[in-house]
């Protein structure tokens, strides 16, 4: 694994989360070093999304701890809003605000939460939009954009506040292959710029290419964890091999 636990941006220690009787996450241990990309893979319902929601404090964990830059964010004394200000999230279903233009969606948090002046926030938003090829869409409403465009707007919205960590939850699941490509290109760029990211994905080829470490979740535990060459090339667990062979059969481990 890259990096020591001390310089980890995000760290999970023995995290446990259950919904009623059903234990969704069980003793999750994970360290995400700065400027690295961690890919969570696993079947639907294996706990990937719940893990992300816990990291952003959208769900309260039952046990264990989650640390951001060495500071425990699951402590009940922690300021949740302050924590979330440092984490950007991109959702599978985009979750853009339909009543606001693209520009307003992006500048909402910088202006209202971070107190950036309107002109400055818009200039920064336009710069980001331009970089992601959306400069012409600034004044459009989200419902009038294609899925790929909406998702890229959602990424810009998450980036606009300059977060320390970006959580990407199956951001390409609702997109067709062509649009998947344009969104993944954005993630690749972000990695080049040194953004620390945790992403859950079913795009194994992409995970293999972009991730520094890969975690295979199954039934709420991290069954296998390591650099992509190891997890994809030489999986230690029978269950991982099974999962990957099915993915290959479905034609999704290209690249």
């Amino acid at each position, binding site marked *: *694994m890259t990096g020591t636990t001390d310089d980890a941006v995000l760290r999970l220690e*023995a995290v*446990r989360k259950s*919904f009623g009787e*059903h*234990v969704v996450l*069980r*003793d999750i*241990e994970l*360290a995400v070093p700065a400027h690295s990309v961690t890919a969570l893979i696993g*079947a639907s*319902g*294996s706990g990937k999304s719940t893990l992300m*929601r816990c990291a952003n*404090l*959208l*769900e*309260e964990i*039952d*046990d*264990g*701890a989650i640390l951001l830059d060495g500071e425990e964010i*699951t*402590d*009940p*004394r922690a300021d*949740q809003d302050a924590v979330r200000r440092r984490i950007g999230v991109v959702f599978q279903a985009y979750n853009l605000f*339909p009543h606001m233009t693209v520009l307003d969606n992006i500048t909402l948090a910088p202006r209202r939460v971070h107190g950036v002046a309107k002109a400055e926030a818009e200039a920064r938003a336009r710069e980001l939009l331009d970089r992601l090829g959306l400069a012409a869409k600034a004044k459009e409403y989200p*419902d009038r954009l294609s899925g790929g465009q909406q998702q890229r707007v959602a990424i810009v919205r998450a980036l606009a506040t300059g977060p320390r960590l970006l959580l990407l939850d199956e951001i390409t699941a609702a997109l067709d292959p062509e649009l998947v490509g344009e969104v993944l290109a954005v993630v690749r760029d972000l990695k080049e710029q040194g953004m620390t990211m945790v992403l859950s994905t079913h795009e194994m080829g992409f995970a293999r290419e972009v991730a520094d470490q890969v975690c*295979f979740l*199954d*039934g*709420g*535990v*991290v*069954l*296998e*964890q*390591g650099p992509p060459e190891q997890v994809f090339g030489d999986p*230690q*667990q*029978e*269950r*991982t091999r*099974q999962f990957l062979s099915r993915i290959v059969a479905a034609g999704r481990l290209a690249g």
Partner: protein
Amino acid sequence: MTAGTAQGGRPSGGGRSADGGVPGAGAAEPYRPSARRLARETYRRQRARRSALIAALSTGGTALVLYLVVVNSPGWERTRDTFFNAHYAWQALPEVLRGLRVNLELMAVCGVLILLFGLLLALLRTLQGPVFLPVRLLATAYVDFFLGLPMIICLLIMITGVPALRLTGVTTDPLLLGGAALVLTYSAYVSEVFRAGIQSVHPSQRAAARSLGLSNAQAMRYVVLPQAVRRVVPPLLNNLVSLQKDTGLVSIGGVIDAVYAAKIITSQTFNYTPYLVSALVFIMLTIPMTRFTDWTTARMNRRQHQGGTV
């Protein structure tokens, strides 16, 4: 092994040993809360106790201040005798309750009619196609007219105007005519509430329903309306509470409802306690209704939405 069985009886999170996991954390062992969790829960309990204490102190303090201000006001003795007189309260209670029957009956019957008529008006206004233009226009005109018409004038026209026509076969009962006036006016309010609810359902829902082959009417009936109605339950309840109080207005036609009963006693005794009694009775009716709506909406949210702390 499928994902399903994997969740059932997994022996241990084997892969975790690679990164030096917590010793003895195998899932086969029964789960035991860690010290960290226990400390967190203790802290939360302390916070909860502290919050409860602060709430109690703050409420008690506010109540005390209000009490002292009222009791020490110069006219308190006099006010207490005119508004809080136990003797008159007991005298008025049975009369007020008898009058309340009128309010309750009006509310129940008119409430149902208003919901049906209001919904019909809202639906008529959503009809598409050129054939329905006159229907849409009529419904819109109706709503515009009765939204603007003051309730009391509508009541007067119905209660005094309709009998003056001397039509055979048409009732002159002020209770029925007053109830009709309530239905006419409130249907316009309620239709606007329904229409707002229908419009708040995202167009993608209609698109999904229509693409399944449902007709416009079916899409409305099975997809849009169920969502719309749930959304407007709180404002509808607001209208119902308002209606409950407005039922008292039929007393201008001579019907003895709870407020009118109180008024009769007051005019005989020059004591205002009966009014207070009827006010309390209305409040007691409203509280369970609002709590019931809170409960149903909360249950709906729990069932439909993903959990979470924000």
